[in-house]
């Protein structure tokens, strides 16, 4: 089982890959406003990449609601602990 820190590290890697920017450091309050490229189209790529990395399947509502990194981490941690 992954620790919260482990999940965060992996999620950070996904962000860097998706947004093609190795300087990204995610933080709980981070939202789309903090990354200029994070629009609704990129959001879909991000969600698909997260699903792949963590082998989870988010439901349609969750796909739309993951507004900030903290929520994303909580959700992934919940999946992880199941």
């Amino acid at each position, binding site marked *: 089982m992954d620790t919260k820190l482990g999940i965060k590290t992996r999620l950070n890697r996904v962000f860097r*890959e*998706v947004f*093609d920017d190795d300087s990204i450091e995610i933080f709980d309050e981070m939202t789309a406003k903090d990354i200029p490229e994070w629009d*609704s*189209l990129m959001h*879909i*790529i991000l969600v*698909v*990449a997260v699903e*792949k990395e963590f082998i989870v*399947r*988010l*439901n*349609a509502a969750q*796909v*739309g609601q993951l507004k900030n990194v903290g929520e994303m981490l909580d959700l992934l941690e919940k999946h992880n602990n199941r």
Partner: protein
Amino acid sequence: MLNDMDASLKREALKDIKQKIKAGKWRESFDSLAELSSPDDDFVLQTKYASLFKDMAEHLPELKKIRVAVLGSSTVTHFNDVLKFWLAREGFAASIYEAEYSTIHQTIIDPHSQLYEFKPDVVFVFTHYRDIKCELPAGSGPAVVEQTIAAAVNECVSLWKALRQKSNCHIIQSNADLPYHRVFGNYETTPVWGPTHILRQFNLNLAKALEPGVSLLDLDFLASVYGRRKWHDSRFWYHSKHAFALDATGLVAHQLAKTIGAIKGTAKKCLVLDLDNTLWGGVIADDGLEGIILGHGPAGEAFVDFQRYVLKLKERGIILAVCSKNEEDIAKEVFLKHPDMVLKLEDIVVFKANWKDKAGNIRDIAESLNIGLDSIVFVDDNPAERELVKTVLPMVNVVRMPEDPSDYIEALCSGSHFETVLFSDEDTIRSTYYRSNIERAGFQSQFSDIADYLRSLDMEMIVGEFDEFHLPRIAQLINKSNQFHLTTTRYTESEISAIRQDKLRTGLYFKLKDRFGDNGLISAVILQQQPDASMVIDTWVMSCRVLSRGVEEFICSEIISLAHRQKCRKVIGKYIPTAKNKLVVDLYGRLHFHRTQETQGTTLWELSLKDDSPCYSSFIKKINAGIKTTGGLK
């Protein structure tokens, strides 16, 4: 092998490509990206390919411009980016027009919509099963079912008609991807009113309703290839109106790009086959006729089936050639004597079994068939040979063959090299044309005088104006030919069909026969009459099978006599150079035209009809389409 790499390794490899892009090595980075990418790669990778391609797109001048409009009932923004990449792999630099989400009808009906301003070459009408309004109460009668399906098909047909009235584009229509959920379960396909039954019938009727200039994209097949249960990822329909699973984006974009390629003439013509461990197991020179694996046992059966598949390709018009490191006699003996050989020697148009390098042999094959290297697909089990051919002849399409012969058909098939949007009678007998050409070459060597030889061929030419019957072949010739094509104009079937109604334009086709057989429809010419009493040769395309037989001279004298009949004072020819049509750079010069202009390689030529027209010598008897007459030539 690169394509067996998993996604994370591919993502690593993309970093190298990014470095190459930074260094300005555009072509090299595009080639690496092409080598790395597969239609099966997941959505995240496809979007990476698309964004890397965006960085290099404008630095790849060899890509041909094409304008594609995508009218979707679902969200297609990501799809379009990925499509651009797969079109580039087909040799196109695409501009894509994306209609507002779910405005297909309005966009097509409104004559002022941006679609028509965009002037698309190809329009993809991308609907899916939710758009087909065919739901009926359980137990509905056959008449109602039939009417409902007909109405749904008609809706598509009338949109095509509206589109075609305002644009000369080629239309690609997707069919219905059958849903995964079924109210009646397995029974749904049985009664005529069953939703599954209805959608299947809709797809069949849609195919029957196609007209020239409209092609189908079999979305339902792609759904089944991808796996229907995964294909319908409704989460992304509810969330953002994506019609199919995002991970299938590459698969759909690849198929659409291949179909567009087929419309625009990039499909391949010739399959070059290795022998040992490709058509049979083992090495004939070592194992002998009884020792090779063919016909019996699992591998033996797989080789037989692979040969059957190859034979079917030949029957649909793909030319077969052999390129093998072998003694010719020993290699041919298998074709002549092995009871389980499906392919016969007469199926192979060029047979190269020798010890020279394969790249050189393939170059010879292309030359003797008069086709471009880029229309060749090469199949060889040996990775070293494949690598050599890829390196020396990068334009040849080299199939990545798997180790197990059971997977050979799939490997050849999945590259979609031989896509087409039409099939003409010419295709079934194409191999015969090429074979008689090689016989002709043997016959020619008996003559010392070329005139004697040409006379002895007893050539007859049927000349006719474009008609519905010959339309598919004419379209094929205009869109697939590269070498003998003065202006490399590409016209869709609907555009060609329109010429027949145009008083100022004339389309002529030419069909040649000789003592060795029918050569089929070998040339087409489109002439445009100008207000200043000149006749412009807008398009002149000819099959290279009939070069050096006085055919050019014959056709030119036909053009001249037509110009005379239309009271024109001069004939104007144009040559627009491409990488492939150097063959005809001086055609008009040879036909006694005078060069009047040259700009960036494009030359204009003029032949005045006031003086006596030039006298060409030709040994071809003219037959008017329908009526048999003699003479025809001065």
